[in-house]
């Protein structure tokens, strides 16, 4: 292994490859900041360029783009509440309120440090544990995945605003319903399309995120523009604040980072789970770990609430390379695009990759760490400039948010049906938000809907229609028991109140 690490270091530290990581991080950050263009698009855009390079160099460039785009996505989540990628939705929960309080610089600095720490810790894990972790990830079966998704959805509903569990659960169902629109993945039967060709492929994730977060946020700001209680919020939107963290904030981060890194990495290793589930679970877990006083700050700009998902999503990014490199199974949509690129280079990822192409396996792992360092060096000095987005007057900022949302959607499909659909969903979302129906559970449910149905289908087919699969395997039973505890706790709390 030591020999492999040295080969990897030698390849990753060549001037050309360091330049590639830097370029990748820079372009990734820029592209990730544009709502609608996430890491998947960013990497897809890089594929034609990388075909001119050696496989290791091409992969290093793509890894840099990946990390940069995830960080860029966090930036737009924090500044304009427009998460361009699913993995940064949870970042907006506390990042955006923090920015609204005039601490945008601080929020971005926390995001940068957390991303760095999460990515670094998980790159070390990846270095030592990749081969053995791939075996663990293989032991997860469909019932376990299904149970994990039920747990994720219940947890995010329970941890949304106080006393809104039922509202949040309704949003979960709505998100799952929206996810069923379009072609059924197995039978290809179209569902809920009302004979509209534009709905055959389903509703795009970016469309839902743009409508429920960015566009509805913009409409809410206008709607509540005359509300005197919002006046202080509007004023603080123009304050950038310092990027320096005080002792108390650093202490909080140090507490959150290790546990979120471990969780993020482990979730990232599971094929199909990825950064989104990792960030939501880390957010929920962190809320359970902190004291009552800190718990009340969640959703209002908590340092713990921002650190946890940011650490976890970057840790999961590294983790998702485990199944890709060791099993040839992509852990996320983005790594699926990278798998396509690897195959394009004529490389078949799998257990033999680090024997047949050690320079590729180890140089990608080493360049991940270098990527983290580059990202921190590159982004920290830029934070004051990036945060100036908030200083834009409301009269300009709102139309620009609408512009980025609409353009993001238009760039994906080049038809106006999606724009109409987005406007419709945004209007409904604005109305629902007015009455405290939380949107994050809807988003997570929408992301997980397809996977959840797929795993339920497999589980039911294997068990011949019986629901015994829910308790047949100890792992499934433990995960479901956790879900039942969360639901029972919510019921107990409402009776107590």
């Amino acid at each position: 292994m030591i020999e492999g690490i040295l080969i990897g270091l030698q390849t990753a530290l060549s001037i050309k490859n360091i330049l590639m990581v830097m370029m990748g991080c820079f372009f990734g950050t820029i592209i990730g900041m544009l709502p609608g263009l996430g890491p998947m698009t960013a990497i897809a855009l890089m594929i034609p360029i990388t075909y001119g390079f050696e496989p290791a160099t091409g992969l290093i460039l793509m890894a840099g783009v990946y990390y940069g785009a995830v960080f860029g996505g966090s930036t737009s989540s924090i500044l304009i509440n427009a998460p361009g990628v699913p993995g940064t939705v949870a970042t907006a929960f506390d990042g955006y309120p923090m920015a609204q309080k005039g601490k945008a610089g601080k929020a971005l600095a926390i995001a940068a440090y957390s991303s760095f720490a999460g990515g670094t810790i998980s790159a070390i894990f990846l270095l030592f544990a990749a081969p053995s972790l791939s075996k663990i990830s293989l032991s997860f079966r469909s019932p376990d995945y299904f149970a994990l998704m039920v747990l994720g959805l219940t947890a995010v509903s329970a941890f949304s605003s106080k006393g809104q569990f039922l509202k949040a659960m309704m949003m979960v169902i709505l998100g799952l319903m929206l996810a069923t629109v379009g072609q059924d993945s197995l039978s290809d039967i179209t569902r809920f399309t009302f004979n509209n060709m534009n709905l055959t492929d389903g509703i795009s994730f970016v469309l839902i995120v743009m409508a429920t977060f960015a566009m509805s946020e913009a409409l809410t700001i206008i709607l509540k523009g005359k509300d005197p209680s919002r006046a202080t919020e509007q004023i603080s939107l123009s304050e950038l604040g310092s990027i320096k963290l005080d002792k108390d904030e650093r202490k909080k981060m140090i507490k959150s980072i290790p546990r979120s890194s471990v969780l993020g990495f482990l979730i990232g290793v599971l094929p199909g789970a990825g950064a989104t589930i990792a960030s939501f679970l880390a957010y929920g877990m962190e809320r359970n770990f902190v004291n009552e006083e800190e718990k009340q700050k969640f959703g209002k700009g908590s340092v713990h609430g921002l650190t946890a998902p940011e650490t976890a999503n970057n840790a999961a990014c590294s983790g998702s390379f485990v199944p890709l490199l060791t099993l040839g199974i992509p852990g996320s949509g983005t790594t699926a695009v990278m798998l396509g690129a690897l195959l394009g280079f004529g490389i078949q990822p799998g257990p033999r990759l680090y024997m047949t192409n050690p320079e590729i396996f180890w140089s990608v792992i080493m360049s991940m760490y270098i990527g983290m360092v580059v990202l921190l060096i590159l982004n920290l000095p830029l934070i004051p400039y990036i945060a100036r987005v908030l200083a834009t007057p409301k009269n300009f900022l709102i139309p620009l948010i609408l512009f980025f949302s609409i353009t993001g959607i238009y760039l994906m499909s080049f038809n106006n049906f999606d724009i109409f659909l987005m406007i419709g969903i945004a209007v409904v979302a604005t109305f629902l938000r007015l009455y405290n129906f939380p949107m994050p559970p809807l988003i997570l449910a929408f992301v997980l809907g397809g996977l959840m149905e797929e795993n339920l289908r497999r589980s039911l087919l294997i068990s011949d229609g019986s629901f015994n699969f829910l308790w047949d395997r100890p792992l499934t039973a433990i995960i479901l028991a956790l879900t039942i505890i969360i639901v029972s706790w919510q019921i107990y709390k409402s009776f107590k109140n």
Partner: protein
Amino acid sequence: MRISIDKIISLLFFVLSVLYLQQTKQIQVFSFDENAPFNAKTFPTFLSYLGMFLSILYVLLPEKNLTKINHKVLDYKNTSLLIIIAIIYAFLILKVGFFISTSLFLFFSYYFLGERRWIWMFVLSFPFVALFMFLLHGLLDIYLRDPLLKILGIIG
């Protein structure tokens, strides 16, 4: 007895779940899949029953955190105007092209939100969209359909 808007929304969600169930029943599955443990109807059927159950539960349970909204301070006029402009923009984007429609959308949005600094309004609409188009079209090679710019020979 006065029913709160929160409960009315839940009732609407109940109606949505019923309509969803009705649509689920109309899904045409293959004959060999009809009696399978899982087919294209199974998951949506679970969802509709769960949706009905949760919404009814919300309606029946006593309300703790009633949402209070002062409608007098809400700016419905400007919000509606912005939505209408966005709808018109969506209509025009394919007809007149990205550049003109987007620039006009931005310009009029600034105007209706009360902005009167004309120079800034212009800079942040027409040149801004041109720069954005250059970034996408020129650097990232993402094609943006624009009949006007094509006629003028600016894009291919």
